[in-house]
C-alpha cells in the first residue's frame, strides 16, 4: 500500500514569530518544524502500511527556504522518502495554489491513499486537503478518526459533533485526519540515524510544470486585506455567595440556554 502524507513545516508554535506588516502573513524566516497536526497523519499512514503488511509512506511538503527539518522528523518516525517543493516563486501562495502544487507532486507518485491533517497549526485555512482531492479528481473524506482498508476501498469513521459517521470510500482517495486521533510515535534513535540517508527529493514549482505567474503572490486569487488583534476576553461575572448564589448560577445558565 502506497500512502502519501502531506506535511507542513511551520514556525515553532512555542516561538511563533510575527506577522509581516506588508503581506499580513506569518514570517517564515525562522527554523521550521513539523506541524504537530500533521504528525497524526504520518502516524496513521505508518499504521495503515504496517497493517497492510507492506508498502510505504512517502511525504510531500511545500516550504520556503528549502526547509527540511520537519521532513526529517517525519522520516525519522518511519516515512520512506520525501518530496520537498521549494522555491522563492512559491512565496505568497494561497490555499488553492498550495493544493495545486502539492497535487502535482502527489500525482507523480500514484498513491493508493493521500492523508493530510485537517488544518495546519499556523494558517488554519482547513481547505487544502479537499482542494487537493478536487484537483486530482479523487473522493475526499474529511475529519477521519480511523481508517480501515479493505481491498480497493476504505471505511472511514468521520468525526462529527454528535458522534461519528461511517463512510465507505473507493481508493485512491484523499483523507483528512483530525488531530489527536492516534498517538504519534516518537522518532527512535535508529529512525533518526536512518532519516539522514532516506531520499529527499527537492523540486521547484517549474519542475512540476508551473509558470512563475501561476504560483506565489502572482498566481493567488486571494489577498489578505486586513488583520486585527483578537479581542480581549471580557471579564467574567463574579457571584458572591450570600446563601443564594446557586440560584443566580442556575439563572445564569438558563439565560445561556445550556440547562
Amino acid at each position, binding site marked *: 500500500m502506497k500512502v502519501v502524507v502531506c506535511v507542513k513545516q511551520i514556525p515553532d508554535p512555542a*516561538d511563533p514569530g510575527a506577522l509581516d506588516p506588508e503581506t499580513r502573513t506569518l514570517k517564515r524566516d525562522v527554523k521550521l518544524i513539523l506541524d504537530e497536526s500533521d504528525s497524526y497523519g504520518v502516524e496513521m499512514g505508518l499504521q495503515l502500511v504496517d497493517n497492510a503488511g507492506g508498502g510505504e509512506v512517502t511525504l510531500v511538503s511545500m516550504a520556503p527556504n528549502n526547509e527540511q527539518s520537519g521532513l526529517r*522528523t517525519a522520516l*525519522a518516525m518511519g516515512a520512506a522518502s520525501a518530496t520537498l517543493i521549494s522555491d522563492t516563486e512559491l512565496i505568497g501562495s494561497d490555499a488553492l495554489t498550495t493544493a495545486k502544487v502539492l497535487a502535482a507532486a502527489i500525482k507523480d507518485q500514484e498513491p493508493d491513499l493521500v492523508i493530510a491533517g485537517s488544518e495546519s497549526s499556523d494558517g488554519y485555512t482547513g481547505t487544502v486537503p479537499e482542494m487537493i482531492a478536487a484537483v486530482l479528481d479523487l473522493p475526499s473524506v474529511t475529519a477521519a478518526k480511523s481508517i480501515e482498508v479493505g481491498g480497493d476501498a476504505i471505511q472511514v469513521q468521520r468525526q462529527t459533533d454528535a458522534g461519528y459517521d461511517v463512510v465507505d470510500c473507493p481508493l485512491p482517495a484523499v483523507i483528512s485526519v483530525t488531530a489527536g486521533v492516534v498517538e504519534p510515535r*516518537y522518532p527512535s*534513535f535508529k529512525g*533518526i*540515524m536512518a532519516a*539522514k540517508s532516506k531520499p529527499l527529493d527537492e523540486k521547484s514549482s517549474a519542475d512540476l510544470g508551473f509558470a512563475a505567474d501561476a504560483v506565489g503572490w502572482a498566481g493567488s486569487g486571494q489577498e489578505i486585506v486586513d488583520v486585527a488583534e483578537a479581542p480581549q476576553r471580557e471579564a467574567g461575572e463574579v457571584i458572591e455567595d450570600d446563601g443564594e448564589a446557586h440560584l443566580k448560577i442556575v439563572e445564569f445558565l438558563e439565560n445561556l440556554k445550556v440547562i
Partner: protein
Amino acid sequence: MAQPLGPKAEDALDFLATDSLLTEDEVMLRDTVRRYVEEQINPYVGEWFDEGIFPHEEIAKAIGQLGLFGMHLEGYGCAGSSAMMYGLACMETEAGDSGLRSFVSVQGSLAMFPIWAYGSEEQKQEWLPRMAAGEAIGCFGLTEPDSGSDPSSMRTNAKQDPGGDWVLNGAKMWITNGSIADVAVVWARTDEGIRGFVVPTDTEGFSAPKIERKVSLRASVTSELIMDDVRLPAAAVLPGVSSMRGPLSCLNEARFGISFGAVGAARSCYEAALEYAGSREQFGVPISSFQLTQQRLVDFMTRVQQGTLVAYHLGRLKDQGVLGPAQVSFGKRQNVRMALEVAREARSVLGANGITTEYAPARHMNNLESVYTYEGTNEIHTLMMGQAITGQNAFT
C-alpha cells in the same frame, strides 16, 4: 554572518548557545528524548516519587522503542550511537528524574555493557536483543553490605564444582533494578580472580528483596541480591575478564553518563526556579525582580552552562577514544556536586512550595544525594583525580 548573542529572554535556557556544539542528529535525538520526558514522565514523576513506585514495564517498552537501552553498543539489536548521543539521552532522562536515568544507565552501561564487552556469543545472543528492546531488564551486582568504595574486598564468591557448575554465595546491596530484573550480572570472588556471572533471576537460590524506606531515588527500584547456593552452568561466567577491570570498566561507562545526567537535573531545577521567580509576586512585584533572586538565577544558569560544556567536552573526547578514567571522575564529581548545590538553592527560591513534590527541585535534591554517593563517591573521585595529578595513591 552570525548574529551576536545578547542576553535576551529566549536565551535563558542556553545562554552560551551550547546547541551550536551539537550536530543536527544530536539535537534531534536530544529533542526527542526531551519531548518524551516532558510528555510521559514529568506530569507523573512527582506522584511516583511520593508513592515510591516506578512503572517499569511501561517505561521499559517506551525506552526500548526509542532505542536508548545500550544505544552506545554495536550489534545485537543495539543502536551503535556515539558516546555523545548516549550522554545527551542521560541528560534528558535525568532532567526528568535521576531514577529514570538510573534505570536507563544501569540497563545499558552496567548490565548490557559487560555482556557485550566480556560475554560469550551465546550470552550476547540470549540477552542483548531483548534487553535493547526493553523486554528484559538487567541489574549489576558489585556493591555489598560491607563492601562499597573498596569493591575488591567483596565476600560474594563462586566455586566451580568438579562437574563444571558454578555455585554462587553472597549478598549484594543497593542494586538498582534488582527486584524487577530478569538477569543480574553478579561479580564474585573465584580462585581465578574476580569473575562476572550472568544470572537469570529465576534461578533457584536467588532472591532480590526491595529496599524500602528511602528518601532518595524513590521513583526507582533499589534492592538487595541474595545468593544462597545459586547453581549456574559453566557457561554462565563472562569469559572475557577475570579481574576488577571488568566491573570498573562498566562503572566508567555509567559514570560518563552521570556527568551528563547531573546537568539535566540541575537544568530542571534552574528552569523551575526561573519560572517560579517570574510568576511569584511578593511586595507587589515578581521575586525575579529582586537582586538577591537574580543573583541566584544567574548563578544557576552559569553553573548549568559550565556543566554542559564539561559534559560535551567529555563526550567528544570519548568519541575520539581518548577519554581517561580520571577525566570521567572530573565530570562525575564536578557535575554532581554542581547539580546538588543548584538543586538545594533552587529549592529555596521556591520557598515553602519548594519542599513539595509539586515542583521538581526538592525531588532532584534528594535524588542527587544518591547520585553523589553511587558510581564512585565524591571522595573516591577526588582521590582518583588526586592520584592522577600527583602520582600518589591516597586511597589507603
